[in-house]
């Protein structure tokens, strides 16, 4: 009998909880031995659970270059996330993963100029890539990040962005919020429009993550600017239960989002039924 | 003219005159028995069929169909008309948009009963009213209709139409014997508690939780069933604990009590042939015994005794041990 089965999780412990926005918290997780539970690649996911409540799949927000712990930025929007938002430091959780195909950070992305576009909690999966690139800065070209949220309070990782990202060389950060608010001096407007205004050259490789409507209009905008579909990537989110391509739930066309994704190139998505 | 042609003509006539936009009826399948409910339009009446293998009760489809634009004609067998009325009284379907044509029914047949006679390759099944002529495995045999009736048609409740704007009846429909309807329920009542528990344990242990009984049931029209609600704590899909199946079927029976018209679809569609209709029929019998005769769906105005308080209602304690 095998000692391991993918469906049997390990126990991990939450060592830090940070409130990012009114409905997003970032959880720092280590194994019971105090070490990082497993090694992952940017864009991969893991199943978290509190037994008795249920399991759910979340993208790993921390960069693989972080050797101490994993981080998950989680928005409160369902049964499991609601309970996760109520836990305190020291709470044990169960964990299995990492799952899915990561962003091609060491192959396709290497040496390229990169444009990241995120909306709301959509920054969570991209933060893993962005920080990976910051830590291996010499392997990549110029970087532009366009990130927007409904309000300034909804911008995830605002502190890290302001204090750290903005100080990196050849690393431009463009923040925007949907509507004007008193204490905000930055840009106001929707992400897809802002992407066009920023005017990043169409030779960049683009990575999108956010609500479907944002993806749709940003994609259209990028194509208008002359970006090629083979240079545009996104990450999908569907209902998943097993995380290993067996339970059938995230099946779209001949792909399983949990196993063959969640990261897809736009040319791959074009070949799939429009069901994501 | 045969009933099939009359029914088709009626559909054509209504569609051609523009009195209705769509017709809800049955469509011929690939073999002698596998007819399916279907929507027909003026331009496409291909495969239109009405014969002894049109058991599906079309009433429930009207919940969605009558929300759509335009008028729709529906063909209903006598027992289906009760479901229709019940749905109208529960405001689930829009009567104004629907033309009801009542159809003669001599009792629908169950292909499974034919195959269970041992036939392997069936070429043809012909309806000779009292007898059914089967051509199969190189021979021709006549079987009495009663022996091949769908479970929902055994002990038919009535051949009267509860509602119909028009009817198509060629051959006289014999009114069923009222006494036979509850005969099986009475037998179950005569059992000891242990025997009865064993009977249901045995039957319900076959349940595969496919939800066919619920999804077909014209009385089950909740937009979000409690058994599908993850927050309900009882949204089980598992059959590991056999108590769960009992709970599922018993809760369902309670929920439709007083509203179930006894159309028998639950038993007809059960892949494991669990006689689920007997649970509902027991409730109907109890309602009759305790509150006087009541047939759900007979009218759209009469209140179901379980939701209608009268001073003459018997006390719960009087029912116990009855």
């Amino acid at each position, binding site marked *: 009998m095998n000692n391991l089965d993918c469906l049997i999780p390990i126990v991990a412990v939450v060592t830090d909880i940070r409130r990012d926005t009114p409905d997003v918290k970032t959880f720092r997780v280590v194994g019971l031995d105090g070490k990082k539970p497993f090694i992952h690649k940017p864009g991969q996911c893991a199943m978290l659970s509190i037994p*008795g409540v249920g399991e759910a799949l979340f993208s790993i927000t921390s960069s693989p270059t972080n050797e101490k712990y994993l981080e998950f930025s989680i928005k409160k929007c369902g049964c499991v996330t609601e309970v996760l938002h109520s836990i*305190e430091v020291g709470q044990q959780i169960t964990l299995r993963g990492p799952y899915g195909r990561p962003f091609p950070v060491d192959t396709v992305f290497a040496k390229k100029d990169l444009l990241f576009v995120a909306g709301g909690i959509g920054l969570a999966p991209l933060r893993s890539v962005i920080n990976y690139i910051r830590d291996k800065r010499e392997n990549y070209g110029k970087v532009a990040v366009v990130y927007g949220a409904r309000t300034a309070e909804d911008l995830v990782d605002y502190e890290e962005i302001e204090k750290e990202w903005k100080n990196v060389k050849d690393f431009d950060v463009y923040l925007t919020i949907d509507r004007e608010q008193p204490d905000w001096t930055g840009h106001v407007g929707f992400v897809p429009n802002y992407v066009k205004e920023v005017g990043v050259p169409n030779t960049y490789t683009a990575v999108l993550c956010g609500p479907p409507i944002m993806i749709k209009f940003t994609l259209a905008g990028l194509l208008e600017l002359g970006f090629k579909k083979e240079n545009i990537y996104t990450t999908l989110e569907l209902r998943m239960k097993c995380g290993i391509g067996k*339970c059938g739930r995230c099946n779209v*066309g001949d792909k399983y989002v949990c196993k063959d994704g969640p990261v897809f190139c736009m040319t791959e998505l074009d070949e799939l039924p429009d069901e994501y | 003219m045969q009933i099939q042609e009359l029914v088709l003509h009626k559909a054509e006539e209504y569609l051609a005159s523009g009195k209705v936009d769509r017709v809800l009826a049955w469509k011929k399948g690939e073999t002698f028995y596998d007819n399916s409910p279907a929507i027909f339009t003026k331009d496409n009446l291909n495969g239109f069929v009405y014969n002894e293998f049109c058991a599906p009760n079309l009433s429930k489809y009207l919940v969605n169909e009558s929300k759509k634009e335009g008028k729709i004609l529906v063909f209903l067998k006598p027992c289906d008309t009760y479901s229709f009325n019940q749905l109208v009284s529960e405001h689930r379907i829009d009567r104004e948009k629907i033309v009801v044509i009542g159809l003669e029914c001599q009792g629908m047949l169950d292909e499974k009963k034919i195959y269970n006679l041992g036939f392997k390759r069936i070429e043809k099944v012909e309806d000779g009213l009292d007898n059914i002529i089967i051509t199969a495995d190189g021979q021709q045999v006549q079987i009495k209709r009663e022996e091949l009736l769908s479970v929902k048609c055994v002990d038919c409740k009535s051949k009267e139409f509860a509602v119909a704007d028009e009817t198509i009846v060629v051959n006289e429909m014999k009114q069923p014997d009222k006494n036979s309807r509850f005969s099986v329920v009475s037998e179950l009542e005569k059992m000891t508690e242990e025997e009865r528990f064993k009977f249901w344990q045995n039957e319900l242990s076959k349940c595969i939780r496919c939800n066919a009984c619920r999804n*077909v049931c014209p009385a089950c029209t909740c937009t979000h069933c409690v058994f599908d609600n993850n927050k309900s704590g009882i949204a089980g899909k598992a059959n*590991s604990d056999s108590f769960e199946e009992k709970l599922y079927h018993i809760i369902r029976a309670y929920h439709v009590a007083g509203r179930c018209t006894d159309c028998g679809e639950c038993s*007809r569609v059960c*892949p494991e042939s669990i006689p689920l209709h007997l649970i509902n029929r027991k409730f109907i019998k109890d309602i009759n015994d305790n509150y006087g005769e009541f047939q759900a769906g007979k009218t759209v105005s009469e209140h179901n005794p379980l939701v209608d308080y009268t001073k003459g209602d018997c006390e719960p304690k009087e029912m116990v041990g009855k």
Partner: protein
Amino acid sequence: MYKIKLSDLDKLYKAISEDYPLYLPIKKAGEVNYGLYGEDEEVSLTTLKTVKSPKDAFFPQSEDLVNFKVDGNKIEVIDVRKEEQPFVVMGVRACDFKAFDVLDRVFLVDPLDTFYQNKRNAAIVVTNACTEPEDSCFCKVFGIDASDPSGDITTFIIGENLFWRANTEKGNALTEKVKGLFTETDDKIVAEEQKAIREKINSLPNVNLDLTPFKDEMLDIFNSEKWGKLSEACLGCGACTFVCPTCQCFDIRELTKNDGTVSRFRCWDSCMYSDFTKTAGGQPRTTQMQRYRQRFMHKLVYYPENNEGVYSCVGCGRCVKSCPMHLNIVKVIKAFDKGGKDE
């Protein structure tokens, strides 16, 4: 090749069940399903189609994955897997046997599903040739020969006898244990019967279904207007998926037991159910047509795309018999047949 009189089969069942748990078609309350042999059970080996397929033997309708003890903010993981003891599944038809291969390609590919694998390895499969195939059978379409199923042992019910042929080492080992009940025989009668079976199969109505349209562009099939009409009467129940020998979708759920232990189990799920793809954030398949299409696209297009052209249907015909509204895969295949009638 060995044989045993049908009237002596009880002795065979008893002999096998002394050494192994024995699962085979058993009649209960009028219907036949695979169940554990016991002397009081009514075995029905000649039943062509059990209501549920034998996939439960490896992929039970519900099974515990793992248990948890929760104490304050502490969690203990309890591995509930036990060493699987060898067991025998008898009476498996050729279609259902092929379905094990379809399931293997899901559960035995990396990452391995040990719950499935452990049961699969522990099983001794005794197949049973279909001497009396019926109208709803169309296994031939998928290249299955119902007259000659494989498995560890193959049996044939011919006249008054059951013929027994071991195919594998596991099969030989089981045969050795029960050989005393058999008489030796040549395979002449079996060969003749096989010929007769193949003739019967060729005369069935659905054995010449054309699958080539499903090799067309995936998106063309997906976007076909035919799905609307085909799915019109679908109730969204799970009858077809639960009786199907190849359907493998499952849900993972939890149950808190009376002693506080949390049991995490998996149970069959159905892509026909409205909540199958529902998330806190949305629902990619909002109509029954989309769900219906997913089921058949998966069986006839997506699965073959990922599995060297192997279809996720074995033509057992259970869905043909059990759909409450008589919708089934045969109608889908025929609707896409270019020579067939156009809807």
